[in-house]
Each structure stands twice: as C-alpha cells, then as structure tokens.
C-alpha cells in the first residue's frame, strides 16, 4: 500500500487523446490476444501515465473490473500513476552517483520541493524521479531536469537549482 503513489494532479486529458485511446482499445479488443497489459502500455504511450479516468475507459473496453486493471498497473514497474512534472527532476542513483552521495541529493530535493521521490506536485509543475545510471559517472553525482544536466553536485547546490525552476 505504502509504495503506491496516487497522483494529486488534475486530469488534463484532451479529446484528441481520448479518441486515440478508444481507437487503440478497439483494435486491442479485436486482436487475437486482447490483454489488459497491452492496453495499459498503449494508454501510457498516449497519456504518459495512467490516471483513473484512463483506467476506467480501459476497464470498460476490456470487460474487466477497474480493480483488475489497477492490479496490473501497480504490479509492473513500467507503469506509472503519476504524470511527469513540467520540470522533471531525475537524480541518478547508479553506483557511482550513489557512492558520491546522491541519496542525500534526493533527500534535499524532497525537502525543497515538499514532496517524495516518485511524486508529482499537484499543480503538475514538478516531479522527482530517481533514475539508474545515466552514463556520465565522471560527473557524479548527477541530476537532470528535463534536458538540463547538473553534475558534481553537493547538497548545498540544490536550493538554488530548485529556486531557478520555481521562478520559471
């Protein structure tokens, strides 16, 4: 229970996305091997995450209960119930970064943004996600914010970086 992070971000799906979802679900339903798993994958590709509004549509189309859909969505780590924030903070928890103290970076980030790893702020502006090795261990510890990369970080650097994005 504790590990499931429900979103607090209001659903902002478009009519366009819903149309796309319904078409895709029709195709899946008519395929030889209709599965909830495939439906969830396709839905996440469209919306970027799996909010209740989307899972309800999936349940209706696939003829299963909402709980069954949710059970699959929370079983596999590939699925997320949270949208990425407009500014998505990603902290590398790969071996090198971790040894260089990226655990403390995550903690500071959580403190500055007032939310936990894996969560998205309810206005949808920020999200924190820990990542595996991003491939630049020489810069450890590393953090990315969308396409910006910050290397050789210390805990002290974090408030300023956060403030910069808050101001945007």
């Amino acid at each position, binding site marked *: *229970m*504790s*590990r*499931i992070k*429900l979103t607090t971000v209001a659903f902002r799906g478009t009519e366009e996305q819903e149309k796309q979802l319904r078409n895709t679900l029709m195709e899946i339903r008519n395929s030889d091997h209709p599965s909830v798993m495939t439906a969830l994958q396709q839905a996440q590709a469209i919306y970027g995450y799996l909010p*209740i509004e989307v*899972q*309800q549509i999936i349940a209706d189309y696939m003829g*299963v*209960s*909402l*709980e*069954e*859909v*949710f*059970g699959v969505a*929370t*079983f*596999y780590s590939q699925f997320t119930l949270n949208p990425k924030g407009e500014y998505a903070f990603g902290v590398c928890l790969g071996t090198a970064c971790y040894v260089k103290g990226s655990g403390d970076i995550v903690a500071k980030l959580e403190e500055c943004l007032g939310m936990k790893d894996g969560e998205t702020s309810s206005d949808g502006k920020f999200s924190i996600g820990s990542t595996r090795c991003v491939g630049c261990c020489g810069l450890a510890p590393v953090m990315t914010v969308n396409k910006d990369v910050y290397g050789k970080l210390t805990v002290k650097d974090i408030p300023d970086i956060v403030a910069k994005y808050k101001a945007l």
Partner: protein
Amino acid sequence: MALVNVKINNIPVQVEEGTTILEAARQAGIKIPTLCYLKGVNEIGACRVCVCEVKGARSLVAACVYPVNEGMEVFTNTKAVKDSRKATVELLLSNHNQDCLSCVRNNNCELQKLSLELGCSSHKYDGVKTESHIDASTPYLIRDNSKCVLCRRCVAVCKEYQSVAVIGANSRGFDTHIACAFESPLANTACVGCGQCIVACPVGALHEVEEIDQVNAAIADPKKHVIVAAAPSVRVGLGEEFGMPIGTNVEGKMVAALRRLGFDDVFDVNFGADLTIMEEGAEFISRLKNGGTLPMITSCSPAWVKFCEHNFPDQLDHLSTCKSPQQMFGAVCKTYYAQKLGIDPKDIVVVSIMPCTAKKFEKGRADQSAAGVPDIDYSLTVRELAKMIKSAGIIFEELPDEQWDAPLGMFSGAGLIFGATGGVMEAALRTVYEALTGKEAPSLDFTEVRGTEGIKEATYDIGGTKVKVCVASGLANARKIMQDVREGKADYQFIEIMSCPGGCVNGGGQPIKSAFVRNNYDVKKLRAASIYAQDKGMKLRKSHENPAIKELYKEFLGEPNSHKAHEILHTSYVPRNRY
C-alpha cells in the same frame, strides 16, 4: 470419462481422468491440507500448503491443481512434504499479525489450525512486516490486512459469485495487498456488502462491523423497549456455532436464548416476510393488470438492490417498491406496535438478527424511517448473536424450546421459506394464485423454483394467465438476467433475486465454514432442506392466512398497497455510479 489408476500413499484408487491429486486423495480417505483453495471458485495453486510428492516429478506439486494420470504415485505425508508445508506456514506467520487471543476468528481460523497441525513455530522467521492499514469505511465490513494471508479467496468470490469485483491484489512482492482500485476506501466503491468475502476468508482479515455493545447497552437501558427478531434462515444456521450439524433447526432454543438475553419482545422477521408477500403480491397483481413495469423484481435482498443501483441504474423501475422484510418489520414495530403499546417510537429499539451483512447498510438507507426514526436500529449477524449468547453464559444446547411472542412473532411457512433461493417466489405464488383465481393452488409446493441452481425458470397457469417466473441467486447470475431485461430479451413477469448463492441460508452473516467443509459439503443445500422441512410440517403455509397479518391490515393498514401501507412499507431507490 476414462478412469485412471493411481496410488496415494500406496493406497490404490481409481478416479476419473483429470481429477486433481487433492480430490483423488479425498477418495482414498486422505485429507491434504489447503489454504487458498476453494472448490470451483479459487483454484490457483498459490499458497503451496497442499504440496505433495509425485514419484518421478522434479519438485513438489500443488495437489489442488495437479491432475492425476495413469499409474501416478503420490505421497502426501513424507518428510519433504511436511517440511515444505511447515516452512510455508511459518513464512505466512512471519508476516501475520498474531493477535490471536483477541481475534474474531480465534478458534475458527484456518491458519491457526494449519499451524497447529503442522507443528509450526509461530516466531520462526520474525522480521519486517508488510505495512498495512485497516479499512473500516463501511457500516458493515472491516478489512484488516495485517491478518491477510493473500489467499485471494475473497477476491475470487467477489468476482466469480457476485461479479462485483471491487477487490483485488494491488502492488507486488512484499507490498502486495488486497484492496480496491486506486486504494479507494471500500465505501466509495460498488461493493454491495453481501459479506461473501467474510465467509470465504480463512483468517481474521475480514469481519463484520459488530453492534453487540450497542445492543447490550440498549437492553440495559430501562427507558428503552428493546424488540428483537430473527430472519428465516437464522434458525438453520445458529446451531452450527454451538457444534450442531449443518442445518440443524434451532428455532425454539434460539427464542429461549433471545429471551434470556433480556429482550423485551422476541419476534420473528418471518412476520415481516409474510407482510412483504401481501404488499409485493398486491403490487405484482396491480402491475400485471394495469400495464405496470414488468418483469417485477423482488427487493428483499439489500446487496442485490445496491448491485442494481450501481450496475443497472436504468432498470430501477423493475424493482418492487416494497421494503425488505427486515425493514417492514421494523416499520411496523415503530408505528402499529408502538401505538398499540403506547410507547414513543423513539424509545423503541428494534434489533434484527440476520444471515447478512448488507442489512447493516440497508438500515441506514434513506427512506427507511416510517416513524421518523430508523425502522431498524441494530442488525446483528448470526455470528454476533452466537457470540452474545456465549458471553452471557447461556448453555445453548440445554435450553428448552420456546415460542415466539405475539403478535409479531406469528408467521406462515411462506414467510419462513424466504430464507432460501426461490422461497420468496414460492411464497408470492401461494398468495397471488389465490388472489387471482379465488382458489387455493393445486399444490402449495412450487418445486420448480426450489433447489440451489443459480438460475431457475418456470411458467405457471394462474386462472388462464400464463405467468413466467425466474429465480436467480448469486449476483453473477443476476447480472446475466438483468442484461436480458435491459435488452428486452427477458419474457418473465416476475423475477426473484437473492444476492448470495443459494439465498440467505448461505448469506455473508451466517456461521463461517472452513474451506474443507465448503469443498466437501453443500452447506446451502443442507440449511435450505431444513427450512423446507419445517414449512412442510406447518398448518399455516400462506402469508395471507397469517392471523396477525390480517389483524394488522384490519386495525391499521387497511388494504395491501393502501396509501398508509405505501407510506410505511414501501421505499425508493437511487441510481449509483459503477466507479
């Protein structure tokens, strides 16, 4: 089907091909312990408690799902088997809240029994436990996941029997837990409150919201006039809580026990059932004659009503507007009977004893307060009543048989058979037949609608009018019928639906039977047979001949479906969302 020869612990047996090891062993007189297995409902081989050794197999196999084949040799009792089962249960115990002494299922817990039988050490693998919380959001059910063993029996009955499917396994691995979609509290889902999950649970993870303390407090309050009444099927369930054979009819002892518990009046909900027939019968005849919405569907089962509201909100016109027997009974107590006694209905406390958990929800519904106060104050399950009797020091087995109090303790066989699937239909037919033809039906036994099958149909010629009826129990069956009704494919005039498979005799508030008993005995059939036997021996078998009912109409209500009857005995429904 072909027969195969197998040996279980060197005992040769011949069984049908495809039989599981578990069943084959049973035929050889050997019991293999199980935990997650519920015959026909939950056959997933998940818990690994039933593992056995098969000669030539690489590893131990799960007996509940492993089919036998010709020449197979199975060993159910070797050291490897016993060690494995023991370790499995010890691991379950390591993540189990071992609050056994104060647990509602103490002495009736399948995990406790397994632990004892397998000689487990309760703290062999102490360590971190899965974080859990208690869902007490509904007025009828509490889920305490700290005691859950993840057998998924509750999930299976919710989906397979009831097609409600609001609970399932969320997350994975050590974090796996049974809950609702989006971790929603149960009260915010389309749960109908039937309680089938409770009676399927092997441990104390699920139980009803108890109202025993409130009832005892009311009894102790000299200002309150406390009335109790028991539903038809309670008398054939209660004895099991005192070690009697399944289906033993303990009506007389139950009345004696209720009186000794200190209730002021000991009445029978069967009276409410007879009253329901008067109202529902009249409503049916009126719909039939005046072109009302047909088929008319019974509304006695509160979980069914809620199911209909959630899943068929566009079909609510089909539901009879009659309150359930429980609610009719309460309404009459607080109007007619209160007036008779000269007591303010606010000082009357009506307690119902029910085979049901949904009744705890029903009593709190809107439009169920005929006298401006709730028709029913407290609704206890059969289990709660047994607990009260035990804690009061009443030696149930030794009680004399006593009679119900007058006048609301008087009932007909028609009211009594409400406790089994088909019973409401049969009771209604006994009365409707006479009302339409002026003659008694050729036989009072409408056997076509009896029996434990999930869906039954029959057509009766009632004075030249063909009446086609349908009886469904188990909400998965009800869903099938309702889809036909929605699509206009159902040519019935009258449908009876009970939520629990087999009706109230198998309700979620009845004594809990272990999986072994459920897998090997048809509990609902045994309890139903006991009810029909009592009906058969009764002189009074038609609701409209119940003298107390006649008097009620004469003195107070006027005619069935009169304006006054409508105000007191009928109700309304609300469309609800599926999510």
